[in-house]
């Protein structure tokens, strides 16, 4: 049993729904109790889909158990076929139905429906959403493409002369982070290279389209989390090679172009310099100097986290101080990336553990999921979202891809937005006493971010301790308090997570009043780091209490 406050991923049948909902002409019959129908709202509310997900739930109840849940499944599947007339059907069980062992696959087979019926075995007590999406897509591709597969060992015939090369785009799903716009960006890029797009799947594809996947010369895997399993099978079965580079960031996009060009046998040069690409110049412009060495913490699915860390380090000039993922299946990618930046990888789907790590590292920017956005908000650290799990805000009305050159532009803007502008930062540092430069003022272009509202909301421990007296109008809480609370939270969180850290020892920093006051003169966005460095410096030298001199000794020692 695992104690869970918030989850990064849903159960694996949610992954199956992300495939089914992305497609057309496919229906999913899910053996599940009524509450599981909540999943519809993920698609209709978060993604604002204008149609119900193509899912029929059996919604069995306690009184059905032990009598006719199997019959219920069969009639639900038959009715769903009659009503929706899909080209193919997925059948499976959610966590509860898995326990009653009705065998949806066998039951559906007995119905002899005149369409392909693909049974899904998604072990709900071991696996999670992304695995479920990958497995579902793989099973679907295998079931629909096998009838068109060449005999094993057949050598793929070379492309006819004069025929344009073609590829499939694999991986985009429902509820994906910017998948809608990535498809457009990458399709445009590939078409401009003189390559045809055979099928995009699962997003927007029908089962008939999926059955045609083998006709392309190669596959472009946009999201390995969902597509690499299917792509490997297609490679084995149809001798279709697939791309390994994910085109997020300018550098990766250029490498991706080269990789695609090699697979298609075309010239990469004409598209390498896209006139729309601005992020590289923006990063070089002197205005961006203030971005240098900003400490960033990166967390997300492995694909987006690895890409974000690369952009942060190589295209923004940040310093990556931590990287992690919630997806254990892709832990290896994160471990490798962590080596590049000489940081400790964090592989965890425990929200509290992630919070503790961020509190401990005190980054100046968090690049994470919606979960980290909440953590960052609590800790008063700027944050930009780079990965699923998604929120309604991750489906902007405007075109906002993550991939390709335009994606790099979008990323530049999105990450810079929450940060303090350079000169503003200096002025704040110089004139601490200015009455309008108080801690809650925040930066001028982000007046809402520094608002005290966000800070009152934070305070996990304190809130529970004083909830009886806590009114919505309680005065804004000073940042120093927040930092202190955060540290306390991080420590108790660590207890819960069962992973004590080095910072967790018995040593307690004691600040004398003048030092505390001096610390207050340091702008709040670097104050956390100053506090942390000073305490570390003091601890190493067993200095107590910390005085103004200790503060400046530490500053000199750490060089900033």
């Amino acid at each position: 049993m695992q104690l869970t406050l918030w989850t990064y991923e849903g159960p694996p049948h949610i992954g199956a729904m992300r495939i089914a909902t992305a497609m057309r002409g496919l229906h999913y019959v899910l053996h599940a109790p009524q509450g599981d129908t909540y999943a519809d709202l993920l698609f209709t509310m978060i993604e604002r889909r204008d149609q119900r997900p193509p899912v029929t739930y059996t919604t069995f109840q306690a009184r059905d158990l032990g009598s006719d849940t199997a019959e219920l499944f069969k009639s639900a599947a038959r009715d769903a076929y009659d009503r929706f007339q899909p080209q193919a059907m997925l059948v499976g069980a959610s966590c509860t139905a898995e326990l009653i062992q009705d065998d949806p696959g066998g039951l559906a087979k007995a119905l002899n429906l005149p369409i392909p019926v693909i049974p899904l075995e998604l072990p709900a007590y071991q696996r999670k959403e992304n695995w479920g999406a990958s497995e579902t897509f793989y099973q679907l591709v295998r079931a629909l493409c096998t009838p068109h597969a060449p005999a094993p060992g057949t050598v793929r015939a070379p492309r006819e002369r004069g025929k344009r090369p073609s590829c499939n785009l694999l991986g985009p799903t429902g509820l994906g982070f910017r998948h809608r716009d990535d498809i457009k960006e990458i399709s445009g890029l590939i078409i401009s290279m003189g390559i045809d797009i055979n099928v995009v799947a699962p997003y927007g594809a029908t089962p008939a389209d999926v059955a045609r996947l083998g006709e392309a010369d190669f596959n472009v895997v946009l999201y390995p989390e969902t597509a690499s399993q299917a792509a490997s099978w297609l490679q084995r079965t149809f001798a279709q090679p697939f791309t390994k580079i994910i085109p997020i960031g300018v550098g990766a996009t250029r490498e991706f172009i080269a990789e695609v060009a090699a697979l298609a046998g075309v010239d990469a040069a004409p598209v390498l310099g896209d006139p729309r690409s601005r992020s590289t110049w923006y990063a070089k412009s002197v205005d961006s100097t203030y971005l240098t060495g900003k400490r960033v913490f990166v967390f997300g699915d492995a694909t987006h986290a690895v890409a974000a860390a690369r952009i942060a380090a190589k295209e923004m000039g940040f310093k990556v101080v931590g990287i992690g993922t919630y997806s254990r299946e892709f832990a290896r990618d994160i471990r490798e990336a962590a080596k590049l930046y000489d940081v400790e990888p964090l592989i965890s789907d425990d929200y509290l553990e992630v919070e503790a790590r961020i509190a401990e590292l005190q980054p100046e920017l968090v690049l994470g999921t919606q979960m980290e956005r909440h953590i960052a908000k609590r800790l008063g650290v700027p944050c930009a979202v780079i990965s699923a799990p998604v929120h309604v805000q991750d489906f902007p009305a405007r075109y906002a891809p993550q991939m390709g050159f335009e994606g790099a532009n979008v990323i530049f803007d999105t990450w810079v937005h929450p940060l303090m502008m350079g000169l503003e930062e200096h002025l704040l540092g110089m004139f601490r006493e200015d009455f309008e430069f108080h801690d809650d003022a925040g930066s001028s272009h982000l007046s809402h971010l520094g608002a005290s509202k966000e800070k009152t909301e934070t305070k996990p421990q304190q809130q529970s301790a004083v909830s009886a007296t806590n009114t919505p109008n309680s005065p804004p809480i000073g940042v120093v308090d927040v930092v202190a609370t955060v540290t306390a939270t991080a420590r108790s969180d660590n207890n819960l997570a069962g992973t004590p850290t080095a910072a967790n020892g018995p040593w307690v920093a004691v600040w004398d009043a003048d030092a505390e006051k001096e610390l207050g003169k340091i702008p709040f966005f670097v104050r956390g780091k100053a506090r942390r460095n000073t305490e570390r410096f003091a601890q190493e030298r067993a200095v107590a209490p910390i005085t103004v001199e200790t503060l400046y000794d530490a500053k000199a020692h750490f060089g900033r």
Partner: protein
Amino acid sequence: MSAVLESGCADTKVIPILKERGQREVFCGLTGIIWLHRKIQDAFFLVVGSRTCAHLIQSAAGVMIFAEPRFATAIIDERDLAGLADANDELDHVVRRLLERRPDIKLLFLVGSCPSEVIKLDLSRAAQRLSSQFNPGVRVLNYSGSGIETTFTQGEDACLASLVPTLPAAQVEAAPSLMIVGTLADVVEDQWTRLFTEMGIHNVSYFPPRRSTELPSIGANTRYLLAQPFLADTARVLEERGAQRLPAPFPLGVEGTTAWLKAAADMFGVSAEKFDAVTMPKRERAMRALQHQRPQLEGKRIFFFPDSQLEIPIARFLSRELGMQLTEVGTPFLHKQHLAEEMAMMPAGIQISEGQHVENQIDRCRAVKPDLVVCGLGLANPLEAEGMTTKWAIELVFTPIQGYDQAADLAELFARPLNRRMRLVA
């Protein structure tokens, strides 16, 4: 007797009830945790379930990621199922960690789910065991919010029913007291407390209380009013403890609130003059406020998908006080006794449906072409895309809607989507 009954059941109209079975598009009882954990401030809700259960609560709570929620899920994993780990030991371990982390918790609910029920994990024994371990600091109770047993608001019913046996016994010779049953916004409780005080009814308690240490006492002299229509089990166990229900419609709208308050006033011997003197200014103010909403709603046809069991009282209010026309009123469950006064007030010629077959119901809804559809979050945008105007049902359980000063707010919740549709021209 109250004006309500006089005007209500003069004729012996029969309202047909369509009972349906099929796919249900409703939440399970776990969802109640979202408001219950805010109401009882020193209680914690630990769901013993699957990743699906954790995901459901998180998704239903939507953007409301609280700083530190007072709920969590103990996710059963393959080791528990395969017997590699003793599920009871695991649960004890999780609870111990939780209580170490949250020493402020005084009341812990172990909340059963479909998986915990199917594997027959005995949470009532676990609750007893843990209660004696953590006694006297923490009381541990259990109830089921599973989707195979409970629908949406029935989770609150199960929770409150589990709490009733812990209510202290009132003295046998205790003076008659009034208990208001069902989770309400604090602001509504405070308004009613003022009204009751003005009428001279002082012995009033609310259940659930805001803190678990403030549980009201109960006995043969307790009279209770249901503030919510979904509390069948809670009512049953309250009566086992000697309390008696005051039959009344539900306190939605001016008429419902008046009749509901009147039931208490009559019981406590408040004179008609006194009652009117206290309530009339409030009634008039509420009716004035309702007049602002009436032009938007009058004559508009409304269709309800089943959701919270609040459908029938709300439909009664919209029909009688705002002139809306009811087409189909769906409810997940219709408690004949608790809703007797409501049913007597329903207009003739409407369709009530109980249970659900969502596909057939959508077909009926399309055929009826209502002006406003009340439905769950899974259906709202797809129906809007078909050109219908919708109101999310879930807002009705998250918003203060009971009592006089909220009557117009309740009406406004229905007027807003219509108003919005009129404004948007593009």
